[in-house]
């Protein structure tokens, strides 16, 4: 009984049985040999390059963190949903909508209200917008019991079209200029703190940037503790693993799922708000560009735990950073020159390729919560 259900999802490595399989293995083998040769030949250069990047990252960790913030918040949204048993691939759409709504309010209101208050209002509405979408997803997934991937896709389609439409209608034609971003250094730590070696840049990355970026660290810690040490977390995980068991001890599975999915929208909203109100300051159609899906990969990579997702987000952020790093400070050595000559698109591809590698399970298995994606049917007789 156990065999086939698990076999079809994640398979252990087995010797191939077909010709095609052997060809695949042969190709992989050749690639592996080439990779080994490459590493051996360019060992020194690689070390140099590594040092360069680490130095870069250490002195400017805010760049990595900056990329990691939307991924991280998106991943937290995913964790909230999937730990409760609801698959959410609409994070992308929620983020995009939040980004647009936040920008809209921030841009329209910065005249009457002033920059910072307008931005704050924008964040509030961004969260609201994302939460509305997550409520829709919750309704479709939990009550309607539609397939959760289709539900998420619908949200993505609606978000893409909706933001483009309203962008055209309300922003571009109305001639509204960019919103200002949320201020840095909200905690007002003196700038000397950031000059301290090693710790200083890290503190800068955490406290010296905008409030949303700061909020990510706290959100991760808070969620990690709550998920594994609190009553809410225990019940949530039970609902995601074995909802029938939770039901029979009196836990309201439907309510738990609704609450968590809707709250997950808050995180997606923060991610979107960050993009337009803390990072870029303007909105472009489709600006999320797949971040929502990278967030899903980060969640899987992080084994559905908040801290794991955060670390994964940092790694993905680092992948994206590489492209920027090359432009800001020239990497050393012949390898460095080679890399510097790479077209920008290659760097852009890193996070996506890294995600695929993660999903292919090269970096270990990933087991989702057992009831993930299965709508809960109270009257089902099993």
């Amino acid at each position, binding site marked *: 009984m156990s065999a086939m259900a698990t076999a079809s999802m994640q398979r252990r490595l087995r010797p191939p049985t077909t010709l095609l399989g052997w060809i695949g293995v042969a190709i992989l083998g050749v690639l592996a040999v080439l990779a080994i040769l490459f590493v051996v030949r360019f060992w020194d250069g690689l070390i140099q390059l590594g040092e360069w990047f680490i130095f870069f990252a250490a002195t400017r960790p805010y760049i990595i963190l900056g990329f990691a913030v939307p991924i991280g918040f998106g991943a937290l949204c995913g964790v909230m949903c999937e730990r409760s048993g609801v698959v959410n691939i609409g994070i992308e759409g929620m983020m995009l909508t939040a980004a647009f709504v936040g920008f809209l309010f921030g841009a329209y209101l910065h005249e009457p209200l002033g920059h910072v208050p307008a931005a704050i209002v924008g964040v509030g509405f961004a969260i609201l917008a994302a939460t509305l979408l997550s409520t829709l997803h919750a309704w479709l997934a939990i009550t309607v019991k539609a397939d959760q991937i289709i539900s998420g896709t619908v949200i993505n389609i609606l978000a893409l079209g909706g933001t483009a439409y309203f962008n055209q209608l309300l922003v571009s034609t109305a001639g509204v200029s960019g919103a200002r971003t949320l201020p840095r250094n909200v905690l007002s730590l003196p700038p000397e703190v950031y000059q301290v070696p090693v710790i200083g840049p890290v503190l800068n990355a955490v406290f010296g940037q905008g409030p949303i970026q700061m909020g990510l660290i706290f959100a991760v810690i808070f969620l990690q503790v709550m998920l594994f040490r609190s009553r809410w977390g225990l019940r949530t995980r039970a609902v995601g693993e074995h909802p029938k068991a939770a039901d029979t001890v009196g836990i309201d599975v439907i309510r738990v799922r609704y609450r968590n999915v809707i709250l997950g929208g808050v995180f997606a909203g923060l991610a979107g708000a960050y993009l337009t109100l803390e990072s870029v300051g303007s909105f472009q159609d489709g600006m999320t560009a797949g971040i929502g899906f990278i967030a899903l990969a980060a969640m899987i990579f992080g084994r559905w735990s908040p801290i794991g997702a955060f670390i994964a987000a940092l790694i993905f952020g680092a992948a994206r950073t590489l492209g920027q790093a090359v432009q800001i400070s020239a990497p050393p050595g012949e390898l460095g020159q080679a890399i510097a000559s790479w077209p920008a698109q290659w760097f852009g591809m890193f996070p996506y390729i890294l995600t695929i590698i993660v999903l292919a399970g090269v970096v270990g298995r990933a087991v989702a919560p057992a009831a993930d994606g299965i709508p809960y049917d109270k009257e089902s*007789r099993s």
Partner: protein
Amino acid sequence: MADDPRQTPSPEPSPPPGSSPGITRVPDAHTLIEDAVTFAGAGGTTIDPSVAARAVAPALEMRGITKRFPGVIANDSIDIEVHPGEIHALLGENGAGKTTLMNILYGLIGPDEGEILLDGEPVTITGPADAIARGIGMVHQHFMLVPVFSVAENIVLGNETMGTGPLLDAKAAEERIHTLAEQFGFQIDPAAKVGDLSVGLQQRIEILKALYRGARVLILDEPTAVLTPQETREIFGVLRRLAAEGTSIVFISHKLYEVLEIADRITVIRRGRVVGQADPKTATEEDLAEMMVGREVSLVVDKTPASPGDVVLDVTGLTVTDDRGTVVVNDCSFQVRAGEILGIAGVAGNGQDELVEALTGLRRTRAGRATLSGTEVNNRSARELSGRGLAYIPGDRQRYGLVLPYPVEDNLILTRYHQQPFSRFGVVDAGAISRNAAERIPEFDIRTPSGTVPASTLSGGNQQKIIVAREFSRPIVLLLADQPTRGLDVGSIEFIHKQIVAKRDAGAAVLLVSAELDEVLELADRIGIMYRGRLVATLDAAGAEKEKVGLIMATGDAGESGERARVQA
């Protein structure tokens, strides 16, 4: 007493001719009160105190419970009462309505009519939380335990001990569990992961869960379905102890001998109605079976002795691993001859599933071989095996045997769609498929409006008949039947058993794998007992004693005395 408000007019009980002692038709507590009154009234005899006491305050009473689902009345005006400290068995076959009744009691669903009384007080149970609060605990047929959680987490779920703020207090929970467990003689480790524990242990945890919440009425739904006879005896000990301490126990089962052993009283349900009560001291299995099914049921299949021919399936040294790489079939060897049924008994999880998968081409073997009529068949494809005359009735019919959304006619050719006449040169012949269906449906008594309805609309028994029809419609050399009658009604069980015996008589070799020891004892000519991946004993069915078989199933010790057979808890 005549003005007792709880009295409702009861129907005149009329014992049918030839009813055996100990069986009363349609009694209820109110008749008992009447009896007591009659006793008292007629000649000044004192009221029999036990009668009066029993009639006064049942711990649990369900009156006139009716529940309808689309197309079926699951519970039809059911009356049942349980006294404090009583073990009351609810007996009925699959589909009789027992679980529905208990789901109503537990608040998972609401009754359409009727009322529930606890200690004489009418209550409305709004949900499981409410039921738990009122002292009703339920141990479900399929365990409601989260495999990745620890024992402690599972027990406290929904009833957590809180520490500071929203955080849990794990230590306090573990202490409480320890205390409770000792009180009832359990041995458990609160930190162990439930998924790693044996089935018997998991069940104890389920009971502990209920006790932790102060259950005074404990409902057990088919508790012994997954236990060996030894584990069953242990659980019975636990139950008797609980009952002695005042817990009322409702024991749902369809197993006649168990019910006779453990229960103080038995209520028999059939097709949603109470058909009668039984006194275990005087009733026999035949009586109970008749009440359950409503007609004379022969508990033993009519079967001529086998005349085995040549060896058809020869398994030598077969070793198979599961998905995680653990060896679960370990150097297993046995033979099945034409014209005989070899029944493999064993507690679920001793490698039977993987053995069956290996023999049907669905799982690779690591070592050893299996030959079918002399040809080596391990590690061949399922398709090739079926071409060589292997027929397979899968254990989980809805997952492996049928494509539920497909029409019946497509399911009937599911394994032969690629062959003529159903397809030629890669193109499917719809006409041939429907002609085939038109023949098979009457031949195998498949109750379905037509061949084009989805298989999902058929009952379990008829779904199984589709599989049987499909597998039996070609020459069979070896029939592999895995849990062939799980979850079926008695009529379908009879049908399938007859078909299997017929195939045996027609010369096929039959390998029967079943977790229902009764089925194996009934059908098999020879019995093999599977323990930790190998066949540790093979006996002739004719002389086999159930207890002995159960012992070997639990310990893997063939031919040792009972002293050594102590199950590690």
